[in-house]
């Protein structure tokens, strides 16, 4: 949904909602989400989990369909299905299935099945587009609580396990020698990923969640010298991209989710260029 369409709706409804209200909520939603996607996105890069994130996010569409069909809250449906997907992929990979193939099949299979399932859910007046591309301008105060709650939970989880996660990422053997179980740490990241997918689907949509994980972290990598710096910078870049995307959406009446991802990509290009110049 674009900002002009949003203004038209609020005007037509004759509500007292001012332009600023939904924009502020959208901005807050983007910033909240960035708190979690920054550090988690860094791990997604370090552990080469980008396609894993994609598959989990795509599966969330199936979760949306199930939630709508059973009248459960949508974030709960997406969380459960995303988690099931993440655990399935992780266990198949550990049993020696080729990760590429597994992800390719499950990711697109889940997306197609989800789209199919949604078409069977009757009386759904919510547009499918909102779940594919996000609907940050329609974020309600309740959504905002869900997004911030989920993001803070992920952030707390990552901070709590930070040293162990980082050691296990560096080398599973080093971690084991230090008494850390790398399988457990991987499970924690999987859980964090499912949580982020569940709260991010409203903001950027299932198709672009992985983009908000990968692109800000990749931009931060060009500048950062340490893992913590990279994580914090990724959060800041993510938040900046959200605000820039919203501004673009306001001025040019573009869809908000893709605008945010485009802004993040532009920041990545600048950061990569800057990093290259500095190193040269």
């Amino acid at each position, binding site marked *: 949904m674009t900002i002009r369409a949003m203004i038209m709706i609020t005007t037509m409804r004759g509500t007292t909602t001012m332009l600023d209200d939904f924009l502020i909520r959208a901005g807050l939603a983007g910033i909240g989400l960035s708190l979690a996607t920054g550090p988690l996105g860094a791990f997604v*890069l370090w552990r*080469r989990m980008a396609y894993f994130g994609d598959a989990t996010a795509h599966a969330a569409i199936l979760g949306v369909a199930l939630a709508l069909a059973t009248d459960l809250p949508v974030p709960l449906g997406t969380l459960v299905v995303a988690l099931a997907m993440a655990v399935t992929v992780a266990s198949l990979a550990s049993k020696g299935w080729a990760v590429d193939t597994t992800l390719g099949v499950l990711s697109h299979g889940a997306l197609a099945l989800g789209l199919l399932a949604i078409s069977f859910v009757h009386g759904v007046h919510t547009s499918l587009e909102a779940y594919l591309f996000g609907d940050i301008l329609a974020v309600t105060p309740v959504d905002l609580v869900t997004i911030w709650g989920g993001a803070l939970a992920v952030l707390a989880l990552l901070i709590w396990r930070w*040293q162990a996660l980082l050691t296990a990422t560096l*080398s599973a*053997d080093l971690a084991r*020698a230090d008494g850390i179980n790398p399988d457990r740490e991987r499970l924690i990241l999987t859980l964090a990923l499912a949580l982020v997918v569940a709260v991010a689907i409203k903001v950027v949509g299932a198709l672009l969640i992985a983009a908000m994980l990968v692109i800000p972290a990749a931009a931060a990598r060009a500048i950062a010298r340490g*893992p913590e710096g990279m994580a914090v910078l990724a959060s800041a870049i993510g938040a900046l991209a959200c605000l820039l995307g919203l501004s673009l959406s306001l001025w040019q009446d573009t869809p908000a989710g893709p605008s945010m991802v485009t802004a993040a990509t532009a920041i990545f290009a600048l950061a990569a260029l800057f990093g290259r110049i500095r190193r040269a």
Partner: protein
Amino acid sequence: MLLQAQDITVRMGGVEVLSRVSMGVEAGEIVTVLGPNGSGKSTLLRAVLGMVPLAGGQVTRAEGLRLGYVPQKLAIDPSLPLTVRRFLSLPHRVSDEEAADALARVGMDAAGQRQIAALSGGQLQRVMLARALLGHPGLLVLDEPTQGLDQPGEAAFYTLIAQVRRDTGAGVLMVSHDLHVVMAASDRVICLNHHICCEGTPRVVSAAPEYRALFGLGTQGALALYQHRHDHSHDETADHGAHDHTGHDHDHDHAGHHHHVG
């Protein structure tokens, strides 16, 4: 004993990589596992550290034993920025002073702010050793620590290990496929080719026919020794527990096996 492996067997993909291997490390002792490529050396280290599942046998560690592990290599993803200083604080944070001490000990004094990815193989080995030492290990386990080093670098590394042992009293268990330098640096050598072929002080092992056959040292009688090596069944190697470091452990008799430490 810091660590004791009893009849451990490891299978990977249906192949028996280790067959009923028994070995141990005492406090303050430097034990080196020697063997050709693919002989199961790294697997033995990983098995005694609990990193690979055992198909048989058991490993016991002294209670409260702290391990310092230096892996063969560290594949850091280029997307992970990591300075030497930050690496030393994983998984337990250490003070700047402790970090500087550990780096000085391995001769990497000024390296704190360098990126791990920018280090050479030998520098990375030293930094990984520094990190392992920061955990005050009772047992240091090193997997081919001198791979990719030139001969002087290798000698320097083993001197460093000997110094660490002297300073901290830690036991050392390491793996190597090179022969000469490691011989001088070890108290005891275990010659491995899926089972233990021979074991003892470097002097004893270097004279043992099994060792010579395994590494093709000395052309004289090599063929005979080769045949000898395949004469015995591996089942006969079962009883390593009552081992006395005389350089041979098969219960059949061969001339020339019972060398004495001179």
